[in-house]
């Protein structure tokens, strides 16, 4: 059923990772991505891996959730691995018929695969431990200097909030409309692509009509609550950097330094 889809992938909790300031979490996630790309050898990459595994353990997000987030990238991972294995020339490692897999190829493939997996894993940690509204809030505030160049930061954040608010409502509504049309004999399971696309019309039109009606009513309700854009607006929840945020930043800095040191002292098999 449609309603089974979970939107965003927030995993509610009260762990130390959950409680970090969203702005700091966004910045540190970016730093982690930089860390992954700085690492030039598997050994250096291992430093980054230790960091993210530790962060996951602290966050108490179940392993099952992490694996679930990796599922969609499996094809990309396999594709990257194969591409690297076969197309990087060097010291022959395995020979299957006419195809040669080089030692360098395997090494590069491993490096790329670990990088992609932990790239996804690391950014998922951000969305697992930060509620969508906090995330929106964090992005809005990080981007607020851009207001100076007339970027409508508040408006974008408001749009994101409203979208997040209405996704469950619209999913439920789609479910209802689908049932209602099925009750009128609509056939959505059979036929070729064209027929199936046509079968969507009785669902999409009512959905659009309803979305516009909702937008209209919501706009009116917002006006009645004195909404007039971002200027002069205050916020109930103030984001404040706590000592934990600075400690987290320091830890990330140490790990980045670790990656750099390993880079200096360990010569990788393949220089990328």
């Amino acid at each position, binding site marked *: 059923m449609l309603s089974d889809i979970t939107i965003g992938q927030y995993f509610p909790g009260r762990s130390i990772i959950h409680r970090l300031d969203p702005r700091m979490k966004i910045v540190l996630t970016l730093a982690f991505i930089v860390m992954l790309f700085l690492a030039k050898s598997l050994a250096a990459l291992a430093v980054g891996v230790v960091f993210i595994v530790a962060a996951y353990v602290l966050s108490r997000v179940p392993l099952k959730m992490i694996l679930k987030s990796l599922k969609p990238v499996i094809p990309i991972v396999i594709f990257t691995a194969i591409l690297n294995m076969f197309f990087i020339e060097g010291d022959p490692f395995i020979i299957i018929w006419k195809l040669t897999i080089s030692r360098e190829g395997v090494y590069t493939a491993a490096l790329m695969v670990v990088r992609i997996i932990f790239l996804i894993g690391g950014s998922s940690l951000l969305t697992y431990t930060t509620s969508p509204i906090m995330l929106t809030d964090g992005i809005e505030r990080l981007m607020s200097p851009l207001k100076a160049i007339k970027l409508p930061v508040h408006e974008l954040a408001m749009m994101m909030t409203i979208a997040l608010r209405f996704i469950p409502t619209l999913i439920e509504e789609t479910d*209802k*409309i689908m049932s209602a049309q099925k*009750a009128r004999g*609509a*056939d959505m399971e059979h036929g070729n692509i064209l027929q199936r696309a046509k079968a969507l019309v009785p669902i999409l039109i009512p959905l659009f009509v309803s979305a516009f009606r909702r937008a209209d009513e919501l706009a009116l309700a917002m006006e009645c609550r004195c909404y007039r854009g971002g200027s002069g607006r205050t916020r109930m929840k103030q984001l404040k950097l706590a000592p934990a945020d600075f400690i987290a930043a320091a830890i990330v800095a140490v790990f980045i330094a670790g990656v750099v040191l390993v880079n200096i002292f360990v010569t990788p098999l393949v220089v990328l």
Partner: protein
Amino acid sequence: MAILKTENLTYTYSPGTPYEHTAVDNVNIEFEKGELVGIIGHTGSGKSTLIQQFNGLLRPTSGTVFVDGQDIWAKNAKIRELRFKVGLVFQYPEYQLFEETVYKDIAFGPKNMGITGDELDARIREAAAFVGLREEHFEKSPFELSGGQKRRVAIAGVLAMRPEILILDEPTAGLDPKGRERILGQIKDYHKQTGGLVLLVSHSMEDIARYATKALVMNDSKIYMYDTVDNVFAHAQELRSMGLSAPQISSVFSLLEQRGLPVSSGIYTVEKAKEEILKLLAKGGEGNAQ
């Protein structure tokens, strides 16, 4: 033979997860042709889940639904064809309208059944007439109509399929008294003319009291009572303890009964109440004259 029957019908949402919830619990019931059954129960009592199994929108977790004596989920049964037999009008059905014109929208259901030509036209006109839509409405966009009119177009869309069983989930929700009476009156006329089975889900006890022949009370995923409207409303006290509101009149009469007055039970409409009071007063008057 019962036209609609269930055997040990059970429906469980999200089985095997922490959110597991049995919405319909071992329901056995038979509905005969020609009845207009009011279905009562508070939100979450399982009535919506029950009716969605009657036309195969939900597949029972266990148990069987028989329509015309046929198991609707039997191996060779065609579930789409079943839906033509069991018409279901959802709550706020006006939100399912999508065609350019009223006429085309009413045609959607019968067209899905493969009906064309004169037969299609005849069905559309018949269905439109049942809900009091005139020809001048046919070429209008359904989105131009008033709320009550939209709802009647949506109901006509189901009636045009000429279902043997018609199920309506709160067809009067959000309408004003005039609109409410109009739609319920039309449902009653439809029922009288076709002689089929009509199931009417409603929160309004007054409406069920006025229009239904039998009443089904759902509570806690089970059938609490299925009986004539008279007998059901005789249990006004129990209905109230379930969080349902019995009609005002039945509350007045159970108060009178409690206070030891010789009123008959099962009175829930203004007409019957008036008769009863006048009868009792006349009796008193007779006694006086003797």
